[in-house]
């Protein structure tokens, strides 16, 4: 599998981009030449070069350092949201698919309700009620994104439930939680891992969008979407202040998409013995893609 994956130039590119981003996020404090937060009005809007590799922003902060720390914030929070999403979405899908009946009805109707709203509108409503802030933005995104996992997991569970090895496991005495844990979950995870990779890019974009609108990260936290918003007064005079974070967001999304596509191709066709017939499910990631903003 790894062999096939790394031979594909697109997947390799995605892998390198994501790897680079993760390293940047991890080692930001070591790599950054300056503290990203203190304001120094005397050094505002300096040109790139010398002490400031990418120059300074409107408040005299080192743009390069803010970009590095921004990777940390953006990726880190997107990752946390993804974890919450998985911890809610997978059990919800397992329950709905395995139990069926009333529980299935309740969970899937809830899913339908959330899917009925345009994602951005839903996030805005949640943030309108809870107020802006990083934690609330994360909550809003998690409330949206668990839905697609619940649906996909439910679909896979429904197909696995009829397999003969589930009947055999019942005869061998497995039931309830044990049955799910041993026999259903291992078949659910590979497609979910692919979807999660694709979703991380979308979450980064969504997160930046909310921050751009002032609903996510709050100053002085360095966050790419918010940095684009901060750069608006200088759009004509110092376009790099907007272009650099914008490019970083685009690159991140691209990286995760390439990686996810590569993983899907490497894992799907015959590489694993799982339900390859669920392929179309992983092609329909219905994550909160917030259009606009960045």
């Amino acid at each position, binding site marked *: 599998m790894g062999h096939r994956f790394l031979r594909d130039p697109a997947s390799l590119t995605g892998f390198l981009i994501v790897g680079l981003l993760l390293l940047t996020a991890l080692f930001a404090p070591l790599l950054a030449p300056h503290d990203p937060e203190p304001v120094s009005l005397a050094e505002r809007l300096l040109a790139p070069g010398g002490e400031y590799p990418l120059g300074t922003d409107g408040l005299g902060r080192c743009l390069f350092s803010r970009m590095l720390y921004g990777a940390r914030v953006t990726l880190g929070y997107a990752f946390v949201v993804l974890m919450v999403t998985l911890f809610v979405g997978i059990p919800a899908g397992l329950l709905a698919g395995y139990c069926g009946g009333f529980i299935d009805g309740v969970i899937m109707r809830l899913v339908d309700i959330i899917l009925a709203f345009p994602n951005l509108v839903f996030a805005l409503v949640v943030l309108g009620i809870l107020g802006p802030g990083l934690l609330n933005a994360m909550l809003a995104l998690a409330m949206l994104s668990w839905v697609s996992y619940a649906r996909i997991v439910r679909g896979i569970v429904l197909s696995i439930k009829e397999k003969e090895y589930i009947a*055999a*496991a019942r*005869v*061998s005495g*497995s039931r309830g939680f*044990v049955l799910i844990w*041993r026999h259903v979950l291992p078949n659910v995870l590979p497609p979910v891992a692919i979807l999660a990779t694709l979703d991380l890019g979308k979450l980064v974009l969504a997160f930046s969008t909310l921050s751009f609108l002032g609903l996510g990260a709050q100053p002085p936290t360095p966050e790419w979407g918010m940095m684009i918003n901060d750069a608006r007064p200088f759009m004509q005079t110092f376009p790099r202040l907007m272009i650099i974070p914008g490019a970083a967001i685009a690159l991140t999304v691209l990286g995760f998409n390439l990686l996810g596509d590569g993983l899907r191709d490497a894992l799907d066709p015959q590489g694993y013995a799982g339900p390859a017939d669920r392929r179309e499910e992983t092609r329909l990631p219905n994550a909160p893609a917030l259009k606009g903003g960045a």
Partner: protein
Amino acid sequence: MNLLEGHGLRKYYHRRGYQIQAVDGVDISMKEHEALGLVGESGSGKSTLMRLLLLLERPSAGDLYFRGGKLNSGGAQRWSHFRREVQAVFQDAAASLNPRLSVGRIVAEPLLNFGPELGSHRIDERVAAALERVGLQRDDRRRYPHEFSGGQQRRIALARALVADPPLILCDEITSGLDLSVQAKLLNLFRDLQEESRAGFLFISHDLGAMRYLCSRVAVIYAGKIVEELPVSSLEQPLHPYTQALLAAEAQLFAPSEMYLLEGEPPDPAAYPAGCRFHPRCPIRMKRCTEESPRLTTVRVGHRAACFTAH
């Protein structure tokens, strides 16, 4: 006291206003350490009956007893106790093995559920012993089901059924889809196991030859009902015309007889004919057969038939 007893077992499915009578009033009984064969063509209800006996599905009507204890009332408690006593080898062995688990893990499953107090070391020992008993290697524990051939996969499924040493094992079509030489080896293995173990076996098959080899008693099922039940010793003198047709349809290598072929198709389970369900295809039907359904009646000791001509 019988090992397993089913009285008036019925399973009806409802599909778009039709009622499908997959199993319709089956009485079945097995003694301890007995080998019973259940023979029937596709769609006759034999696999549904197996699912009923395994408690994978609830019967629409009828009672199921294991060693005198009633099963299909009572809650999950009694079921889980029964589960320990009855294991199965499914028809599609490949599909009955979880592709993501190692062979050792698959075979250990009944022990992990029924005897976790054994501890991982002894469970591992018993898994290895079970694999050896069915003719596989101890070290096959670490391999995965797809690395094995069809015959070996059946052996893995059999090892799983044997590992907890249950008193009853149900085997669905153990030889179908295998080479003749592999079939022969499997049949010998089953015969050895019958002698070594305390288990009773219920074999479900359409292969009369295998039945003769493995079973002491054979029940023939047609259109959801048992039409004849007889000791293997009198299998060559069946009383029911359907059993006679089954025997005649076997390939006769040394004594090619004039073929006694049945006309028509098995009946649609959503619309069985009135009277005896076999009468539209029966060469010796009478007027009575179209009106009245013959009951399964004892003809001789150990021999029951559901045909007016036999009564």
